[in-house]
């Protein structure tokens, strides 16, 4: 908490000096801007998780840029962040406070599907737009599709689990099947809301991609000892393990390396998208392959690199996947307010639906009312496809898609892959 207060205090101090200077310079429009009521955007996330804290950090960065460029028609954006301690109940209280007391015009919240699913009805009740930059469950958009009039205030500003699964299947086909001649896999996912649709899609699209699914293991997100799980998987002799993990990440990776499980890890490991993952695992991450939204040093769009650099400069770590999408979320809201010429909820929803924004992760558009994934991010070539990264010698190397790749797959010595097919 103290750090946040200090940050707020310094930004207030910075603003009071800067604003005063501007006012003294007697620029009438700027003076009006300083007088005008700021537009407030609420951020709800878990401040002590790396993936969580990237949300307010990136949002603040975007708000500062927009404010430096004159704000929204002269009105400044003010970011108000709340720590939900990864609890749905805390998040709901924060949402109520944000709307009723702090009068925010929109809320950007959480990377945990369970939390977002708890906030969704409140976004409907309090008629306040809610964007999630990181949760993945398909349930979020299903609710909007089934009761549009009621739930239309929620926007799923991140790829749905089924899209992530599709991206992983597409990448697995190119990387594992074509590249290494792999034929079989075991799906290993944590038991959470976001992995249900993920696994459903995996079981369909992995065989289509050329990987026969030998087993499907779901385990408790509280697990700390993964030996029995790896043991069970090894017994099936798959060519690759496809993971669906986010709540866990460091521990299975470290144990995979310590036990020298000879099977490569692919799929989605959210924790591995953070730059501290190498240090947290003491390098056990070497060879881990994961889906990611955007990566350091990869110009997915012209905006990706400048954002990454600015973020690293300010916070000392690279943004987790949520950092990219939260930065984009603030721009999407800003553009919608400008289009709607209003901060009222209903015109804002209509304007958000018309979003066509080139952000840091790709070209962002939302599916419409009649699509099954109402208000979900559109997936596909020319829009957003996601990336596949691999940890190599302390660095995240992008290995897929080919046009953005910065390197090729390479596995640590204990992982046994058929090298022949690779060339």
């Amino acid at each position: 908490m103290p750090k946040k207060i200090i940050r707020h205090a310094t930004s207030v101090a910075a603003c009071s000096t800067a604003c005063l200077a501007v006012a003294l310079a007697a620029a009438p429009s700027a003076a009006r801007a300083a007088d005008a009521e700021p537009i407030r955007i609420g951020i709800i996330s878990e401040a002590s998780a790396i993936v969580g804290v990237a949300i307010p950090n990136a949002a603040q960065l975007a708000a500062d840029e927009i404010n430096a460029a004159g704000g929204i028609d002269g009105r400044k954006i003010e970011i108000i962040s709340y720590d939900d301690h990864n609890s749905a109940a805390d998040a709901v209280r924060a949402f109520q406070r944000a709307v009723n007391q702090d009068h925010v015009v929109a809320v950007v919240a959480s990377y945990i599907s369970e939390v977002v699913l708890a906030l969704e009805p409140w976004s409907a009740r309090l008629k306040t737009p809610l964007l999630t930059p990181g949760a993945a469950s398909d349930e979020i958009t299903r609710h909007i599709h089934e009761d549009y009039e009621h739930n239309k205030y929620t926007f799923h500003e991140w790829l749905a689990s089924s899209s992530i699964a599709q991206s992983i299947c597409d990448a697995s086909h190119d990387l594992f099947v074509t590249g290494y001649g792999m034929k079989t896999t075991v799906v290993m996912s944590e038991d959470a809301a976001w992995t249900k649709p993920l696994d459903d899609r995996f079981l369909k699209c992995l065989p289509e991609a050329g990987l026969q699914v030998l087993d499907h293991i779901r385990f408790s997100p509280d697990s700390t000892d993964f030996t029995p799980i790896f043991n069970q998987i090894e017994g099936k002799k798959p060519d690759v393990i496809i993971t669906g993990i986010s709540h866990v990440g460091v521990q299975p990776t470290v144990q995979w390396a310590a036990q020298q499980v000879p099977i490569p890890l692919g799929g989605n490991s959210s924790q591995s998208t953070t730059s501290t993952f190498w240090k947290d695992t003491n390098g056990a991450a070497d060879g881990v392959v994961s889906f990611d939204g955007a990566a350091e040093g990869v110009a997915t769009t012209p905006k990706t690199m400048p954002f990454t650099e600015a973020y690293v400069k300010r916070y000392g770590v690279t943004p987790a996947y949520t950092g990219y999408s939260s930065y984009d979320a603030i721009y999407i809201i800003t553009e919608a307010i400008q289009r709607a010429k209003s901060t009222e909820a209903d015109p804002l929803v209509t304007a958000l639906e018309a979003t066509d924004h080139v952000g840091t992760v790709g070209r962002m558009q939302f599916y419409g009312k009649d699509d099954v994934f109402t208000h979900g991010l559109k997936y596909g070539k020319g829009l957003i496809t996601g990336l596949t990264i691999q940890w190599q010698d302390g660095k995240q190397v992008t290995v897929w898609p080919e046009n953005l790749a910065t390197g090729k797959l390479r596995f640590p010595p204990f992982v046994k892959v058929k090298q022949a097919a690779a060339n």
Partner: protein
Amino acid sequence: MLATQILVDGFAISALYALGAIGFTLMFGVSGVLNLSHGATMVVAAVTAWLVANKFGSYTGAAAGVVAGFVTAYVTYFMIVRPIQRSQAIPSEEKEIFVLTGTLLWGIMIQEAIAYFYTDNPKTVRPLIEGVVNINGVRTPSNEILIAAICWGAIGLLWLLVNKTRAGKALLAASINPRGLTLLGFELSNIYLLVWTIYGVLAGIAGVLLATFLGTSSSQTGQLTASAFSIVVLGGLGSVSGSLLAAYVVGYLETVTAYLITPEIRSMPALILLVLVVYVRPQGFLGRR
């Protein structure tokens, strides 16, 4: 093959459980204190080891972690427990509750502080020795064997201390009849200090080993305290050999469940056993009271 796997895996994890719980039970036996910041103490040791190991290597890191566990135990004793025990304002029959609440809150403070400064992402310490050994077809990380050896070494040293040295015998006597001991001219506060020292070192070692084996994070402090607590209740509050037995029962029950049924319900049978024991034999396996 599967049987060997269960034997090997269960042995290491049980040894770790035993080491974690033994200081906890010893302290209760001797001074009547249930330290609910136990998990937090272990995590402090683990995170310190992680931090130091990043700069100065595994062994220095491990040593620093043990020292951190010891320091945390002392801070807990001098800042939280002793003021409550000595307070004139708290009626003596309420002191146990105050110690429970005090250490619980202290544990939460430590947990939040770690989460604030180092996030709640799990941390792992590089294994003290790398590589794997093949035991009857089971690929076992050498570090796991080392962990079991260190745990049993520490437990053996504790046994020697309690049974063969004068200070240790006084410790044992304090757990049986503290008043009798004061009548013989022993200073109880010295004995408390000794038990907190032993506790701190054991919790520190357990924390560091846990970090090299499974990894740990600030969000696990409650779980670690709870697991030590259930092992101690199962074995009989205050009974060191009871805790050892209980640690192995819980460790193997969990491992067998994870391998033969599913990892998803790993800890459930042990909890059911705990409920049964509390019903049928409330004093635990080897409890005296």
